[in-house]
């Protein structure tokens, strides 16, 4: 593990949180500010984490994937569409509709990824071009279908978006009861802290799955035979081939797994965060996810912590605007949202300079394998 990098990232997040607490602490208990910021951080980080994991699977096996953005957008649309069909046309309950939507989203991501694999592994097309094709295709397909289905008066849904199944509900983790009980034994009252803790830990299913997938992916990549083979075909496909590893198969499989993860990120947008689709709604998150992947040196935990930095800087930016009146005069430049908006990108560049350790991409990343 790259502790220097994690230390640096933890430091950045701590600094961002501390500034807000120093400014806003006058009007609100610090613990509430922190729990609210953590909530925003996790929400913003979820699609980025999933997108970054998607990139890691692809690139660790030697395929550059800049089509994550398009895969997320397409998955967001088709997942949402599936959920709407299930609930409003076939009359299913909310939860089964959402689960079907989730499945369709992951399949969509996987299908787009299969196309990317076909282009870049089988046909050896320049992988940047292949990814660009996916991005353009996704914008076109989702925009076109969205219009055909919902916008025009003669469309299937008659110009009205039907009432969808809503979103996944929060899974309540009863940590507050445990903390309260513990405090009660010690004879003190810590209900505020207990509630804050449970607010942070009680998340919706995809947000929880994202964290779980970080751990699982780390284990798969670095502790299993599959992971070793994946990394082998990404580092030195020739060597892998000589010992009998099927390079083509490994690349296809990992790109498709990555696509399904990007699909999960897309599902987060329309099935968990808000209950509707808007054209172009991924808004560059697939690319920020790639930045997070690089920031994290192509490791799941690194990418996750990088996604948290992006999330924390969003939380920072929002809270600063909320506490606008409380910002001291000499710090007034912080009121300009774009100043704060730059933070994660500046950090990415800083990291790329190698100040806190070298960033090493897989050696055969982006190179088609010729036997």
């Amino acid at each position: 593990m790259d502790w220097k990098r994690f230390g640096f990232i933890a430091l950045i997040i701590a600094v961002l949180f501390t500034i807000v607490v120093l400014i806003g602490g006058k009007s609100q208990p610090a613990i509430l500010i922190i729990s609210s910021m953590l909530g925003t951080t996790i929400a913003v980080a979820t699609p980025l984490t999933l997108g970054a994991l998607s990139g890691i699977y692809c690139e660790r096996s030697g395929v550059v994937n800049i089509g994550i953005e398009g895969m997320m957008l397409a998955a967001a649309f088709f997942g949402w569409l599936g959920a709407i069909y299930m609930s409003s046309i076939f009359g299913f309950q909310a939860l089964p509709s959402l689960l079907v939507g989730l499945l369709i989203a992951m399949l969509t991501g996987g299908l787009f990824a299969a196309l990317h694999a076909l282009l870049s592994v089988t046909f050896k097309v320049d992988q940047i071009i292949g990814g660009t094709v996916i991005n353009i295709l996704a914008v076109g397909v989702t925009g076109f279908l969205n219009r055909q289905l919902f916008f025009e008066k003669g469309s299937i849904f008659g110009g009205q978006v039907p009432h969808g199944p809503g979103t996944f509900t929060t899974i309540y983790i009863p940590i507050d009861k445990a903390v309260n009980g513990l405090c009660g034994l010690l004879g003190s009252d810590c209900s505020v802290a207990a509630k804050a803790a449970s607010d942070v830990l009680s998340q919706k299913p995809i947000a929880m799955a994202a964290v779980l997938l970080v751990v699982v992916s780390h284990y798969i990549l670095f502790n299993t035979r599959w992971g070793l083979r994946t990394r082998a075909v990404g580092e030195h496909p020739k060597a892998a081939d000589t010992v009998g590893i099927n390079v083509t198969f490994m690349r296809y499989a990992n790109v498709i797994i990555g696509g399904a993860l990007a699909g999960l990120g897309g599902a987060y947008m329309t099935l968990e965060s808000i209950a509707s689709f808007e054209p172009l709604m991924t808004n560059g998150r697939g690319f920020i996810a790639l930045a997070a992947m690089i920031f994290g040196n192509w490791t799941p935990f690194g990418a996750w912590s990088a996604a948290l930095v992006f999330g924390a800087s969003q939380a920072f930016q929002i809270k600063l605007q909320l506490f606008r009146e409380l910002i001291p005069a000499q710090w007034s430049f912080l009121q300009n949202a774009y100043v704060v908006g730059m933070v994660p990108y500046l950090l990415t560049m800083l990291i790329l300079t190698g100040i806190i350790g070298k960033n090493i991409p897989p050696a055969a990343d982006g190179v088609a394998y010729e036997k």
Partner: protein
Amino acid sequence: MKKLYLVLTVLVLAALVLPACGPTTPDCTKEEVFCVGLVTDVGKIDDKSFNQSAWEGVKQAESELGAIVQYIETTDAKDYAKNIATFADEGYDVIVTVGFNLGVDTRAAAPTYPNVKFIGIDQDQFEGTIDNVSGLVFPEDQAGFLVGALAAMMTETGKVGGVFGTDAVPPVWRFGEGYRAGAAYIDPAVEVFVVYHSDVGFDKTFTDPEWGAATAKSMIDQGADVIFGGGGKTGNGAVEGAAQAGAYAIGVDSDQYYTLPNAAPRLLSSAMKLITPGVFDLIKLAKDGSFPAGNFYGDAGYAPYHDLDSMVPAEVKAKMEEIAAALLDGSLKTNVPPVKP
């Protein structure tokens, strides 16, 4: 292989020739054919708010005035001028450009095409009047003021929030400041959180529903119980996020009760700009030959309470009507300047 090329050649030639046999598109350069073209801002025609309202006004011109209508969706801010020129070169009579950001290119195109009437939505003409440009502008500050007052009367926590696109676009800024002023008019002690998504470029600030939802959630954590979402899809996200969290939500531009069904049960009202009738009126005036150059003021207001009608006390409703009337006759001022100082 040669055969393949032959087939392809035949197909390509057929594609070139065939359209000529199909129904001919009306020739807009002809005197008797009245054509109206619409150029969107970056974003889609089906954005459930701004572009869509304008397009509905154009569609009304199609059904009531017999106009030939068409739209171009702008995908990149660099294409504004090109898209406007596409319509102008085809001899369109009226070109509607949607959004403050197209203002500069609209004014630049006007002298080149003196026979075309330009309708610029949200494009104030304070710089000077051009004979064939009419800027359709709205008192957003009044609409914002109205829903701000409503929010301040309906809040139980004494905290209300507003999530907006960017403050670099004056109409959006006027919504935000009007909202603040309206809440303060009811009760200066009400805390108003106003957040703009100014940390990204123009191309992203209005198309980020996920950010809108996260921001609304953050305000609700802070104690806000009424959220006003203003600014394309970003605002839509805030409205949906607020409704999901159980807070009251307020929509923008059109009556979003009809465009955001998931938020409808918690939608208190919407700060409306009556874009559709404004666009239609201007197109009609252009057709009748009495096109008003300069600023043309459309109406602003607030939408009905719909599902929450029974939740709004009678005295609040009465107060809202009183404020709306006072804003209209000028006895009440929002004191929001037209552009950010």
